[in-house]
């Protein structure tokens, strides 16, 4: 309660705090320089105590034995293909020096993931773009730029760059990697969707070609800088608050392969691994065929998730998007994967709100059945409030509403009639709670009828397929002696004792609803 963050923000903060861990803090996103020109001297950071002077860096180099990762990092800095026009070699060297000195002095040489740390020239370039792009800092920024451009290497400058470094690893990393002037109260919406997981997942992307892993990483990183310079800082939430310099659009994919495994994004998407819409359409056709022929749910679910991801990162929202979600939702339903189904359903609800086509009433009906299953009455209330009068006239929605009302009033007769006549794929959902409702009905029947009822009556009233099936069900939840054969027909002996047993089973069944229903 007393913490500043309210619980509904807690999850967001959990993902952000993950980035504080030094082990994978840097590679997960673009480390952005603190605003150097606006640093207030009144707030000394611990790093100020670090001795400046290049000489110190030299001595550090002699003292410390550098791990191979650092060496290869340095090597890469000087490779011609990584040079960026507009960043002089001297600037790059200064930056490199400060990076390494900083790392050595804070004992983080082994903690930093050098393979994915941006090259110093990239850092310098980013600094410049930031300063240029930020009108508030323009005066100071340009002054500073002039100073660095003239490469007047003074003691003072060196110190200021050291400050910047510490801010980069300490202050900045804790605040999401965005410089203070980009920080708004709300966090970047996209950030919330990214979990900063250890890098192993990302490395798997390159498993086909392990030898060139670091190089591929490098490529990916370069791409990322090109695309994300402004885009993720200028998502709608922050755009409202701060003037965004380069309102770049969503990612546009370049990948031509039809199939792709799903990985949860741990960084900004790379256009090389994202498939554009025409490819995705072919993918969907392929997946539909494969699902018919192979019926391999693990494969198909994975493929659909990556398909959905590609749509999301490219901000594609049209009828095709709706179709993808609908098909995935149906497949998930068929396989009883309620977790996945629920994800699709939530997205679909928003997509339908935008009138993009698809089959809104079919899925609105599922939604109602789903909330009956999870017995989420608050959400049910919301779902009911969502319906338009026209929706209520359609067969599917009407059916779902009737199911709901039959259950609310305990009208098992009507409920099981509806169960046997469920439109679309609603039966998959109803299967999930039909046994639960059979127990409720049996508890009622046992209490209300005397002295017995024919098993045939149970079979018919409770939608069983055969007398054997209903007998089996009764035996599973009560005792043998409640079923007796009289005059050639099997009868269920009703009355208090049987009612009690079914009441117990019913309560048990109603208690264990797995809300998520993940498989």
């Amino acid at each position, binding site marked *: *309660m*007393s913490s*500043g*963050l*309210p*619980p*509904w*923000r807690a999850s967001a903060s959990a993902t952000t705090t993950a980035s504080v861990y030094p082990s994978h803090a840097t590679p997960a996103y673009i480390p952005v320089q603190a605003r150097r020109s606006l640093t207030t001297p009144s707030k000394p950071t611990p790093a100020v105590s670090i001795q400046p002077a290049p000489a110190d860096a030299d001595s550090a180099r002699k003292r410390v034995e550098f791990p191979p990762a650092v060496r290869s990092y340095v090597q890469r800095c000087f490779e011609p293909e990584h040079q960026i026009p507009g960043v002089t070699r001297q600037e790059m060297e200064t930056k490199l020096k400060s990076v390494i000195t900083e790392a050595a002095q804070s004992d983080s040489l082994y903690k930093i993931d050098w393979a994915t740390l941006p090259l110093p020239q990239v850092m310098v370039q980013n600094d410049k773009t930031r300063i240029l792009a930020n009108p508030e800092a323009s005066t100071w920024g340009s002054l500073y730029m002039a100073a660095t451009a003239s490469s007047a290497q003074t003691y003072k400058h060196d110190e200021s760059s050291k400050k910047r470094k510490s801010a980069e690893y300490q202050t900045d990393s804790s605040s999401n990697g965005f410089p203070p002037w980009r920080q708004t*109260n*709300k966090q970047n*919406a*996209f950030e*919330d*969707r990214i979990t900063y997981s250890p890098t192993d997942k990302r490395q798997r992307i390159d498993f086909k070609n392990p030898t060139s892993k670091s190089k591929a990483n490098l490529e990916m990183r370069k791409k990322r800088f090109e695309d994300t310079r402004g885009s993720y800082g200028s*998502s*709608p*939430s922050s755009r*409202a608050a701060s003037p965004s310099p380069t309102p770049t659009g969503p990612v546009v994919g370049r990948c031509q392969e039809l199939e792709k495994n799903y990985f949860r994004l741990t960084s900004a998407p790379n256009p090389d691994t994202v498939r554009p819409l025409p490819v995705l359409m072919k993918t969907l056709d392929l997946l539909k065929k494969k699902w018919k022929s192979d019926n391999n749910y693990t494969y198909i679910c994975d493929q659909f998730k990556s398909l959905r991801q590609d749509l*999301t990162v490219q*901000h594609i*929202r049209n009828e095709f998007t709706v179709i993808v979600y609908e098909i995935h939702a149906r497949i998930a339903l068929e396989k009883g994967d309620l977790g996945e189904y629920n994800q699709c359903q*939530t*997205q679909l*609800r*928003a*997509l339908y709100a935008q009138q993009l086509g698809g089959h809104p009433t079919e899925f609105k009906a599922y939604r109602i059945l789903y909330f009956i299953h999870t017995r989420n*009455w*608050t959400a*049910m*209330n919301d779902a*009911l*409030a969502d319906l338009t009068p026209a929706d209520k006239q359609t067969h599917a929605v009407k059916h779902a509403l009737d199911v709901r*009302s039959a259950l*609310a*009033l*305990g*009208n*098992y*007769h*009507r409920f099981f009639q509806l169960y046997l006549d469920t439109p679309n794929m609603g039966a998959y959902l109803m299967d999930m709670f039909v046994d639960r409702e059979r127990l409720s009905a049996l*508890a*009622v*029947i046992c*209490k*209300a*009828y*005397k*002295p017995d*009822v*024919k098993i045939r*009556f149970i079979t*018919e*009233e409770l939608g069983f397929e055969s007398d054997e099936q209903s007998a089996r069900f009764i035996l599973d939840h009560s005792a043998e002696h409640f079923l007796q054969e009289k005059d050639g027909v099997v009868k269920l002996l009703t009355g208090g004792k049987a009612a009690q047993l079914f009441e117990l089973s019913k309560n048990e069944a109603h208690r264990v609803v797995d809300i998520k229903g993940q498989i």
Partner: protein
Amino acid sequence: MISILEELAEGQRQLSGPLVAAALTPVDTSEDPNRLQSFYNFSNAAQISTSLRHYLTQTCRLKIPKQELNAWIDLFSAYWKVVGELLKFGESSTRASWVQVFDNWRDLANVLIRAYTNFGFENWTISCLYVVGKYLRLFASKADAETSAQSSDAFYQEDATTDFGKNAKTEEAARVLNRMFTLCLNDRAPLEASRKWGVYYMTNLLFKTYFQINAVGLSKNLLRALSAQAKELPDLEDFPKSHIVTFKYFVGVIYFLDENYGEAEEHLAYAWKLCHRNATKNKELILTYLVPCHLVNTHTLPSKKLLSHSPRLETLFRSLCDCIRKGDLHGFDTAMTAGEEEFVRRRIYLPLERGRDIALRNLFRKVFIAGGFEESKDGQPPIRRTRIPVAEFAAALRIRTHADSRTRIDIDEVECLLSNLIYKGLMKGYIARERGMIVLSKGGTAFPGTGV
């Protein structure tokens, strides 16, 4: 004459919280239509704290400890800034912005919180907390409305379901209010000088905020925190009634939404009894939830007199109640459909729907009464006929649901309805399926609680 400053000074002299709180209320009054403007004209941004200090120490000759005085000056300087933002609306300039107002008011709230934690504001000033909290919520929702009005045309969303930022300011307000809540709850000063007296007011503000942003679940955290501190808190009866009525109302609604109608009725009834008799709107709100609760729990309908006080409740419940009373199922279904939108919006659809059971009970009771009496034997008082063919109930259903001659009434369904009433204790007896008969209990207990 600057009424805001006078209220402040007078409040300080008398140690009256309400007076200081009145000074902090950011509205013009009918007595002083230029109340805010005159305060704003009192000084300028550069000199406001100096002016305030001079006014309080020299003009009014108040003796306040230095630290506390500084805190008051900070508070009213922050207040002066908000007033400036508010006045922009009057200038019809495009610069006026509720987001600005909110941000400045939030700063004011933070200054106030600091004044309590660090600079020894005493508990007589607690009304300041109320007024600042109240306007914090109001300004937040105005700011959010303003933001969404501006961004509605800009079509861009990260994800299909992002409501993200829709309630950003209100959420921020909730965070600040939560700090105020803990500020009250965790005050360890002796009770007579404690801020604990403000805890229910702050809770209510948070309830309102959570309901507004559709985060009712968070309210339970507050209830948990309160019950953990229950021993330290003064008795509920000792708090101002206005705080308690609102508090009980919200707790009742929270249980209500969980379908825990028993608990809900308890709290709502408490609120109902304590509610000021002229607080019409509050009474309406309480009854909106209390009536369905009572229907579910006790199967009783509101009296004509109760509903007659409020036209709104009258339209909400009247026809429904009449149909239940008469056992008019067709009318009941029509009334439910007619009121559906409103019922769903108020989240009372689900409990009201259960009223159908009562309507059905009343209908079947009529069947029982129409069955008349058995032949009395040996001068015993006559007893009602307790063996009734299911077909008679089916006939009653046919009449009351307006079924025409073509619709078949399903005997199995009639039995199902009957068995449910028996199961729920609305009827006593059993169904003998082989003979197509209902055997009801004798001795005036066939329909418990209805006299037959």
